[in-house]
Structures are given as structure tokens and as C-alpha cells.
């Protein structure tokens, strides 16, 4: 099989790309998409660790499943907040969601 560290490297790459996206994008929806990438990186990690380190117990798979649930709730709440702001200001470009500037 492909060695474990290769999966971990894909996950680290995906996480770092998401990290760049959060820091560099100005649009709140784009930032949200980048955060989703980071969460997916975590899931690759969890499933890969489960497969190679402890395939007999199911903790890793269950953990990954709960990450899905939380990601769904987070996306719903985030988009609701974004749409509320958009209604008031016709924009979510605001520099005040720029994380590096704080």
C-alpha cells in the first residue's frame, strides 16, 4: 500500500492551502470555503491514521463522521451570518473580516 506519510502529506498540503486562503482572501464566503478545505485535511488525517494505526477500533471513523456533522452546522451558521450582513450592507467584502489586519 501507499505509505501513511503520503496521506499525511496530502492532508498537510490541503490544510496549508486552506490556511493561505483564510489569510489572503477578502471575501467572507471565500474564507468559509478555505475553512472547509482545512476541515477536509483533518478528515484525511483522521481516516488515514485510523486505517494504518488502529483499523480494528472505530474511533477514527467515528471522529471523522462527527467532523462532518460539525462542518455542516458551521457552514449553515456561517452562511446565515454572511447573508444577514449582506442584507444590511450589500457587501461581504468588508476589510473588517480580513484576519491579518486585526
Amino acid at each position, binding site marked *: 500500500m*501507499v*505509505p*501513511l*506519510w*503520503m*496521506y499525511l*502529506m*496530502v492532508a*498537510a*498540503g*490541503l*490544510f*496549508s492551502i*486552506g*490556511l*493561505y*486562503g483564510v*489569510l*489572503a*482572501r*477578502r*471575501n467572507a*464566503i*471565500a474564507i468559509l*470555503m*478555505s475553512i472547509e*478545505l482545512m476541515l*477536509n485535511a483533518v*478528515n*484525511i488525517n483522521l*481516516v*488515514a491514521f485510523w*486505517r*494504518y*494505526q488502529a*483499523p*480494528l477500533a*472505530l474511533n477514527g*471513523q467515528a471522529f471523522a*463522521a462527527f467532523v*462532518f*456533522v460539525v*462542518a*455542516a*452546522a*458551521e*457552514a*449553515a*451558521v456561517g*452562511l*446565515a*451570518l*454572511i*447573508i*444577514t450582513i*449582506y442584507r444590511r450592507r*450589500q*457587501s461581504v467584502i468588508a476589510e473588517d473580516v480580513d484576519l*491579518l*489586519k486585526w
Partner: protein
Amino acid sequence: MDITVESIVFLIFGVLTLGSALLVVTTRNLFHGALYLMASLFGVAGLFVLLAAPFLAGVQVVVYIGAIAILIIFAIMLTPQVTAMRSVRTAQWPVAVAVAVIFFALLVSVVTPLMDELGVDDFAADFTQENPPDVPADSLVRLGEQLVDPQQFMLPFEVASVLLMAALIGAVLLVWPEGTRSTPPGEAGDD
């Protein structure tokens, strides 16, 4: 590592995941970004299949691509001006690149054998396993049982349902049009 069918498939899905992810964070058009996000998530689902977790791969397609990505596309279409913005990056984007690259290097140095190859001993965790034991055939059945077993994952399962309920109620009422729910005098909103 020999070139096997598995390693080629891994390469394809890995490149699909990372390549689309790069396009997500760099593309000008948010709508295209959301489509690339779907491609990237699909690549992750492919990796799950390789990792003998077909159930999670299915959930990935249904929940992530089918629900979350679609939700994001809806949000993009509900906020039209946003897609037409001129500059997509903040002024400090080079700093962001630097942070991301450093972070990647840091993670890679501790989880891959790279540092061992470079001659630095006792630095990285040993993650070179290649042949783990097979996954038991009934693991999906057991996962289903354990999720509702009080001695396993019942508590997080129930908490997740409470969380989803609260998120649902909160999100719906946050964007609920003003005035459709009767409010006491003097409390009507201004929009």
C-alpha cells in the same frame, strides 16, 4: 515503493484534491471557486475509498458535495455583488503565502521520514507504515451499532443532534424575513 495501480490512483486523487484546492483559493470568480471546491472534495472522497472507508466516502459525497458545497453556491448567488469584486486578495497576501509555506514545511518535517532522510535523527514520528492489518469486514455494521451504543458513541451522537437542532433554529431565525413573526409593539425591525 513500487508503482502499483493503487499508487497511481492515489496520485490521481491527491493531485485532484490539492490542485483543485489551489484553484479554490486563487480563482477570481467565486462561483468557479465553489465548483473547484466540489472537485477537491471529490478527490478527498477518492482518498477515503483508498483508505478502505467507503462509508465515509459516501457521506463525503452526499453531505459535503451534495449539501455544504451546494449551500455555498446558493449563498454566492444570494450575494451577487460579491462575485464582481475587483481584487480578491488582501494586500498582505505574500505574508499569507509565507505563513502557509512555513506551516506546511513544519508539518511535513514532523510527520514524514524527510528529516530522517536528511540525517536528522529522532525528529519525526515514525509514520512509514505500509501494510496495516485488513479492516474487518463487519466494520460498517459495527460503526452503526457503536454510534448508538451507550458504551461507545451514543453521547456524542446525541450531542451532535442537539447541536444541529440549535444551529438550524438559530440560522433560520437569523435570516427570517422581518415582520412575518408577530413582534410586540415598538420592536418591529427597520428593514
